[in-house]
């Protein structure tokens, strides 16, 4: 029987995603240099660093969101379950069902709560019947800790929910396709402290089933929710390690300068 102090650590060494020697260019600008990272199974990995350090750029590489940016070029290797996600045979739409994303501002579709969650399963053909789709919607909303609040108004527009509820609706939408990895780009920066705490609690619960990667400007949030932390600075991955180690004994002076709030 493991106690709480052991359970909160990473529970696996299994890699979901592996990035090796990743370079990103925006035109002439070399935005990300030589990044190697492992995204572990059932683990929350936090990316921290000052604005423009490349953390969001790297997050967007993990489900090929940079494909849509004019002039962006990605080099190196990013593997999901051992397969190169930049292989020509990979369909980015299929990839994004396996690597879901939640954005900074809650962005529910202008549809009902139900249809927001059902959207992904529908386009990917994950449900064979209405009953099965109902089941997916309910379990996704439960996983997003939203079911009890919205079960009586599934037909109401998703945009009518509170900000925190909208963000959890977006998380339910992302988990509805049963992804392997969930990417979150500043998921709490538009939320109040209570809604933030609810989303953080949710992230901790999601870890049981998914790998979560979160980009955050709040170092305290990274410290609270993650087991692994990667610190980016000027396009480099400066340090990657256990969150406890990063926040108590960082190895690189640049990491120390950043997390202690000094000019780095």
């Amino acid at each position, binding site marked *: 029987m493991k106690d709480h102090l052991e359970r909160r650590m990473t529970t696996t060494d299994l890699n979901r995603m592996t990035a090796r020697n990743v370079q990103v260019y925006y035109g002439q600008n070399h935005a990300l240099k030589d990044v190697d990272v492992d995204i572990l199974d059932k683990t929350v990995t936090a990316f921290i660093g000052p604005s423009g350090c490349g953390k969001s750029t790297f997050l967007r590489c993990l489900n090929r969101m940079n494909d849509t940016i004019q002039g962006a070029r990605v080099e190196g290797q990013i593997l999901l379950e051992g397969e190169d996600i930049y292989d020509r045979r990979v369909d980015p739409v299929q990839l994004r069902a396996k690597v879901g994303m939640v954005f900074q501002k809650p962005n529910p579709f202008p549809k009902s709560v139900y249809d927001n969650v059902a959207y992904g399963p529908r386009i990917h053909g994950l449900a064979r019947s209405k009953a099965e789709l109902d089941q997916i919607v309910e379990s996704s909303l439960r996983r997003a800790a939203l079911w009890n609040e919205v079960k009586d108004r599934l037909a109401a527009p998703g945009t009518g929910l509170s900000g925190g509820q909208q963000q959890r609706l977006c998380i339910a939408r992302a988990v509805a396709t049963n992804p392997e990895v969930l990417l979150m780009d500043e998921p709490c920066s538009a939320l109040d402290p209570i809604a933030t705490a609810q989303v953080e609690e949710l992230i901790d619960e999601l870890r049981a089933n998914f790998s979560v990667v979160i980009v955050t400007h709040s170092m305290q949030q990274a410290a609270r929710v993650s087991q692994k932390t990667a610190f980016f600075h000027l396009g480099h991955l400066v340090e990657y390690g256990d969150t406890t180690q990063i926040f108590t*004994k960082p190895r690189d*002076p640049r990491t120390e300068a950043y997390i202690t709030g*000094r000019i780095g």
Partner: protein
Amino acid sequence: MSENHILRAFDRDLDAIQGLVMKMGGLVETAITDAAHALEAGDLDEAERVRKADRDIDVLEYRINEEAARVIALRAPTAGDLRVVLSVMKIASALERVGDYAKNMAKRTQALVELGHTPVVAQAGASLRRMTRAVTELLSDALDSYAARDVALAQDVRIRDQEIDQMYNALFREFLTHMLEDPRNITPCIHLHFIAKNIERMGDHATAIAEQVVYLTTGEVPDDPRPKAENVANLPKS
């Protein structure tokens, strides 16, 4: 870390707490020196001053803990900053204990003076003074190593503590001999022995402070066994 925080009030908070620790260290060093002098000179007034001055040391420890709690609550310190806050609390606690030992020395001085003049007290006085001087230097070096973040000096303090241990062992044997020679020596020797034991404990606290300096600077608590010479529990049966 030489760079300043972007939020300069954070630097001022940390500097202020560390200033309190240095001030506390100064009061404790004075207390030891004065207590040793009072013992040697049989000066009751000075002993009384040492006892009263211990209150100031206790108040400083309380203030340091309050300030450390405030920094943790308001500034959420991490990495090197966190280690500063954790180490000041431990150092303050070690200094408070040393202050208590000095106060106890003053208390026993009063008891010894009431016993009247005995040759053993005069004889032990010089040895205790040497031991006190050595422990004051050890403590002062521990605090200097803290102020300068000097790991080499801190390691030196850890090693030198065995000198204090050896002095204590020698005194222990000396007191034992006096007591065997004449039962009238038992009461003063028991007091003198507690004083010697307390000075030996001061050395251990100086070592604990030095260990905090190593932790503060490197992030690791030293785990190599430091040499120890205190072994009166293993004295041959006489």
